[in-house]
């Protein structure tokens, strides 16, 4: 079944563009987690991407966990430059060491912090909030994350699950080097929770 053409061509880093609500000039390119070890606006980018910035095709490039945002300069259109931006980004992602950041947010902890914020602000956080709960980031340290569960979560017997299953999975997808996730009011799970843990879940 393998397409012979696939075997001959080099494997590229998987990327695809997604629209950003309310901002037609910006595209969010999903890139595999941990391709680039930094977040925020990079101070240097590889030549292919830099050329687009120099030519005023792109206004800006910024990195977020699991994605790169590209914003068009005024007067440019995706129809004209979409394919070129894709090719340049694809090429640039092959040399992650050429993306650098001189600013303060360049450490691994900063990246992890950005990932946790994104998870808490995203669908996982939405799910917890829909149950009357609240999550807050307390600290990140050497790939470990500490959060606080508040609101309805604080004394919920299922909170341990929520933590491991949802938050941890969400973070690990964007930050594969993740160590442990602990909650401030976290304690040894109750027997009932451990019994529940024996049952297979869909995600497992």
């Amino acid at each position, binding site marked *: 079944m393998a397409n012979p053409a696939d075997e001959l061509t080099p494997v590229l880093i998987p*990327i*695809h563009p997604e629209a950003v609500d309310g901002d037609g000039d910006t595209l969010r390119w999903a890139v595999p987690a941990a391709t680039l070890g930094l977040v925020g606006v990079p101070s240097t980018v590889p030549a292919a991407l830099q050329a687009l910035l120099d030519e005023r095709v792109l206004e800006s490039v910024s990195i977020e966990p699991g994605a790169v945002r590209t914003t068009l300069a005024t007067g440019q259109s995706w129809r004209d430059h979409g394919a070129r931006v894709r090719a340049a980004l694809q090429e640039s992602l092959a040399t992650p060491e050429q993306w650098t950041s001189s600013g303060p947010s360049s450490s691994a902890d900063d990246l992890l912090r950005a990932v946790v914020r994104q998870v808490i602000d995203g669908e996982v956080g939405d799910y917890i909030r829909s149950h009357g709960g609240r999550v807050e980031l307390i600290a990140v340290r050497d790939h470990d994350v500490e959060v606080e569960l508040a609101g309805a979560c604080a004394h919920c017997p299922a909170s341990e699950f929520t933590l491991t299953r949802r938050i941890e999975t969400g973070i690990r997808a964007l930050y594969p080097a993740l160590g442990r996730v602990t909650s401030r009011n976290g304690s040894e799970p109750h027997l009932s929770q451990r019994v529940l843990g024996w049952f297979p879940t869909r995600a497992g």
Partner: protein
Amino acid sequence: MSGHCQPTAASAGVENADVRLALVGSPNAGKTTLFNALTGLRAKTGNYPGVTVSRYEGACEIDGRSVVIEDLPGSYSLDPISPDEQVLAEVLDELHTDSQTPQGLLVTLDATTLPRSLRMLAQVVRTGLPVCVVLTFTDELTRRQGALDESALGRALGVPVVSVTSGQRRDLIALKELMVRPESWARPAVPPPAAAAEVSSWITSVLTSAGYRLPETDARTRRVDAVLLHPLWGTLVFFAVMVAFFQVIFTVAAPFQSAIEEFFAWLGRLAGTHISNGLVRSFVADALLGGVGGVLVFLPQIVLLFLMISLLEGTGYMARAAFLMDRVMSKAGLEGRAFVALLSSVACAVPGIMATRTLPSARDRIATMMGAPLMTCSARLPVYILLIGLVVDPDAGWGPFSAQGAVMFGLYIGGALSAMAAAWVFSRLGRSKGPLLPFYMEIPPYRIPSARSVALSVVDAAKTFLRKVGKIILVTTIALWVLLNLPAQSVADLQKAGVDPSDDSAVSAYVIDHSYAADVGHAVEPVFEPLGFDWRINVGVIASLSAREVFVATLGQVAAAENPDNPQTALKSMTVADGPRQGEPLFTPGVVAALLAFFLFALQCMSTIGAMRRESGSWRWPAIAFGYMFVLAWTMAWISRQVVEALV
């Protein structure tokens, strides 16, 4: 949201529809199910200009707006390799003015095979037309432990995504809302890439974002396939299934068949007692009831044949059979797709020949086309059953296996082997070897066939058969009746010939023996004499050139004229009218064997010849097929007669 659908013939009108959409998808992606669900099974068929890829269109009214949906041929890509794909590429090309470009495309994607189908979606989105993805088989994806986030998929693709499971009405509501306004569908700012490596990158990224997890192979399917796809056991099971197949056709159909027979016998008696005019009585009793009724008797068999074919297809066994046979086909120098074409020919050679369109190489197409008419089609069934019934005792057999079923199985095997041999010869003859193209075939998981689609295919087959009986067979039968009963004999002529004018049977026998048809039958006697055919069989064989079943109708007419109460007995006791064998039984085992062989090999079907002409683009190939098959039929019939007569 109100949405009701109606046939195109109604006021909606195909030409001045408000919205024009097209359905695109790979084969087996549930495209046709969706089309039927949207248009209510009432499709208008036609052809694309220049080629004969059938074109299906249906209309649908949603919120007072008429929406026309065109069901484009199923395909795995837009690369124009085969005629099917060519049509697809042209319809989606706005610059191609021969075909009307749709305002939007509904692309069906099988959720269980997304990594592959996204490749085609990338091509479709690149055409620039508005695209809406319709996910199918999401229920199966979940059942087989796969996962997919539909809204994330929609975000990643940049086009609307809706999921429709087996054309269910409640799923259609969201889709129909979208269908009326294709201009408002989201479109990606940057279309998917074109280069193979970039497309692979895009697909992986999109699927990761959508949380896609490939479904596991169904455990039951895997266990069953370990046996059914096994080179030895699988082949044995395949033959066992085929044997059972033909046994069922004989044993289950028998009671229904005799009921229909009795019904026509009753009608015949009714006609005999209530119609006083001799000519009208003869027309009704002999031509209509004897001829057309004689063919209608085989309706139960046709229904059973298609019932079993659709069950085998619906459960997923047919694809396995094709997979098993791919090995055998490669020995004949053909690919697995050719087997699908040959297999369809078991129903009828016309769809079989049309199925050759999926073959990318012209050489393979012609070779398969030349072999397809040799497969035992359903039109041969009545002829075989009639002939086998004449010489093989219905009670003979071994345990549950009837001798009649065994002979029938042998005929099907004979047809299949000769079809492959013919395809092999013709693929050798056409020397120019094109590039070898990859063969994709989907092995679906075993599924319980939907009662609706099984019923649909059976009803369709029955309708087609009845339409054929009502048109070609009725017309030929009437023409034959005229030829068999003219010139009219006066009382004086009869007396001069020593026939008692008051003896109806004797009179009709005399009339038929001196009819125009008899003249024709006698005229071709030199050709068929070595096969043991007399003029009556000759008339039947010539008439069957229009459609094979007419042979049964002809013999039915002749027999009904001689013994209206029991035509079957009349056939059995028929004797040779003249010549050196005069007075001997006509249907000896040798002659029946010759006839069976003749019908196995001869191309007696105008529809097949027409289909071949359309698909190959000239009269050359149908002429070659007719010629070679006639010579083959005559030779094989002669050999069969010699062999059987030496044995019996």
